């Protein structure tokens, strides 16, 4: 009996002693931030002039997004084909179209990249990205990503995706009470239905739209619902406001009972490409090549109003496996590979207001790396 007790004591002592030892996963601050591509030579790129870069500090909603000429920047094939896996939450959403077109048109192949798009939700993809099992994520710097970075994951937002068209009304809609005008709506205490979680980047435009109407994420009742239920709940009075996505808002657009209070900010992408250590540190050439192919795809196929070409819309609908009429019903997205200054700080403030984030906000140096897309278009800092 005594021997047994000693055995248990030894095991407990070993566990306690080991607690003091360092782990290979020890909590750290990830990589130091801007060092990734710090020593790389950036050369001018044909077809990408001054219009290929805009100052990140320019937060104007009317800013013209950066563009190179079509088919540029030209491919610079890697010496050896490299397999790249990109996780994305969906393959049927319009904002994934540039990646899918790049795969279909062989833009990644021209760079010597063998790209696979894998459908994985962000929380599942995050540890895989940090471990290097996948190379990139087509997602957004959500609260989960920020929490992962705080926990020591070396993940950075390296390119933007889109901002909405000025005509888009994807955003906060409210059912007006009798005699109420949109300007008079007070959101405090109201119930808002949404399929988007509080930790999504949409928390930022939500907070902004709510704040302009006397509300805030901490002042409303937040009701998360399935995609099919959001509009139904708004129509039958289950909720008195809702965050409606493309193309659902079209169903209430012409109805005077409903008012649009605000949506995603223009000129400020809230998502895009996130890299893990494999493309940030281990193989920066492949990281730049991937963004070069993406940027070339945007310049070639998505430079402006891409939906004015019916044959391209038909092609996109087939590629995204979605209804052509649904795709046509909303305006083109403004594809934008750049990242605005301070976006992650504003996002983190919204996460805090939504009660899904604690502690000090991460500085931009730990969450964003613009050097890869800048190198792809030949912008010298």
């Amino acid at each position, binding site marked *: 009996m005594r021997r047994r007790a000693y055995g248990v004591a030894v095991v407990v002592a070993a566990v306690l002693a080991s607690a003091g030892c360092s782990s290979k996963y020890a909590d750290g601050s990830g990589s130091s931030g801007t060092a990734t591509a710090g020593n790389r030579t950036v050369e001018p790129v044909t077809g990408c002039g001054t219009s290929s870069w805009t100052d990140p500090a320019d937060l104007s909603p009317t800013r013209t997004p950066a563009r190179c000429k079509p088919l540029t920047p030209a491919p610079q094939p890697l010496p050896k084909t490299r397999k790249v896996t990109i996780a994305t939450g969906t393959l049927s959403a319009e904002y994934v179209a540039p990646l899918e077109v790049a795969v279909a048109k062989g833009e990644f192949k021209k760079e010597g990249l063998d790209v696979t798009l894998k459908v994985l939700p962000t929380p599942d993809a995050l540890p895989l990205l940090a471990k290097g099992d996948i190379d990139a994520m087509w997602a957004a710097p959500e609260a989960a990503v920020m*929490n992962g970075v705080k926990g020591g994951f070396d993940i950075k937002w390296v390119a933007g995706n889109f901002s909405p068209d000025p005509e888009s009304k994807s955003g906060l809609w409210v059912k007006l009470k009798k005699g109420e005008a949109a300007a008079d709506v007070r959101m405090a205490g109201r119930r808002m239905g949404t399929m988007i979680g509080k930790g999504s980047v949409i928390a930022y435009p939500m907070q902004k739209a709510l704040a302009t109407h006397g509300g805030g994420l901490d002042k409303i009742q937040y009701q998360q619902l399935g995609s099919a239920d959001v509009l139904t709940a708004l129509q039958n009075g289950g909720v008195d406001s809702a965050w409606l996505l493309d193309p659902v808002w079209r169903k209430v657009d012409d109805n005077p009972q409903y008012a649009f209070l605000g949506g995603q900010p223009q000129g400020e992408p809230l998502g895009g490409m996130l890299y893990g250590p494999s493309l940030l540190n281990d193989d920066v050439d492949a990281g730049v090549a991937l963004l070069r192919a993406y940027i070339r795809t945007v310049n070639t196929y998505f430079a402006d109003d891409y939906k004015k070409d019916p044959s391209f819309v038909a092609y996109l609908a087939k590629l995204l496996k979605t209804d052509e009429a649904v795709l046509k019903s909303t305006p083109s997205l403004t594809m934008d590979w750049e990242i605005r200054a301070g976006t992650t700080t504003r996002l983190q403030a919204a996460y805090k207001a939504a009660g899904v984030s604690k502690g000090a906000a991460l500085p931009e140096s730990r969450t964003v790396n613009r050097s890869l897309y800048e190198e792809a278009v030949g912008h010298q800092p």
Partner: protein
Amino acid sequence: MTTIAPGREESVLVRRPGPHELHPVRTHRRRRALELSLAVAVPLALVLWWQLAATQGWIDPRVYPAPSTIFSDGWTRAAAGDLWPDVWATTKRVLGGYAIGTATGYALGLLMGSLSLVRAALEPLLDALYVVPKLALLPVFLNMFGLGEGPQIALVAATVFFFVWISTMSAVLAIPSGHRDAGRVFGATPWQMFRHVLLPASLPAVLVGARIAAGVAVLVIVASEQIAATNGLGHLIFDSRALFENDVMFVGIVCVAVLGVVFSELVRVAGRLLTPWAPRDRGRGQS
């Protein structure tokens, strides 16, 4: 101990008293101590191994937080009062749904077990509904009851109902006809027949169904809270997973496990008190 005595033409079976017979109290005490030690030591060893693996870096503690981290986070949340609203929300839904499901399941099981025409009318329909995954009914309940507590309670009730209904009906059908005949011979009224024949004969089997349903009720509510609730342990687990707060997620998982065990044990203890005549169920890990 049993041996065969050698060297004889006719073998004789000799049974020597074993420790059970020689020292019954001491042997029983030792056996209980061994069982108790195993019940505590195996989970403890696993937790210690987990702790060791996390601190040594054999597993990534950012994905699988160490038990000490989970305990510390759970303690902090409980002390700050952040955990209890979720625990209470889930408990309320489980208790409400369980009460409704048990009552309706028992009543219908009794009716269908007693009246063959009612059984003929309802059994095919209920059999068909039984195999429908209950979570698939959540959208229907959302439409019926709106966004409040209604759909959650209805889902638990629907789940529990089937377990209790089936066990009640089969228990009533299994009552020997002699018991009923005896009741009739003594001129028992329907109430007396229920009170003195059907209830005591069926209750032990019903409580087995109720105990299984207790575990399944917790299982279902966690899945349901993920989809259509703004609080509760299921919401806590899946919300923290979406936010990559794995320590909080594990706190939720531990709370669900504790809630399930406590609820199931309460039902078992209640069953023992309600059916002292039934064979004694001595609970987990007890011989």
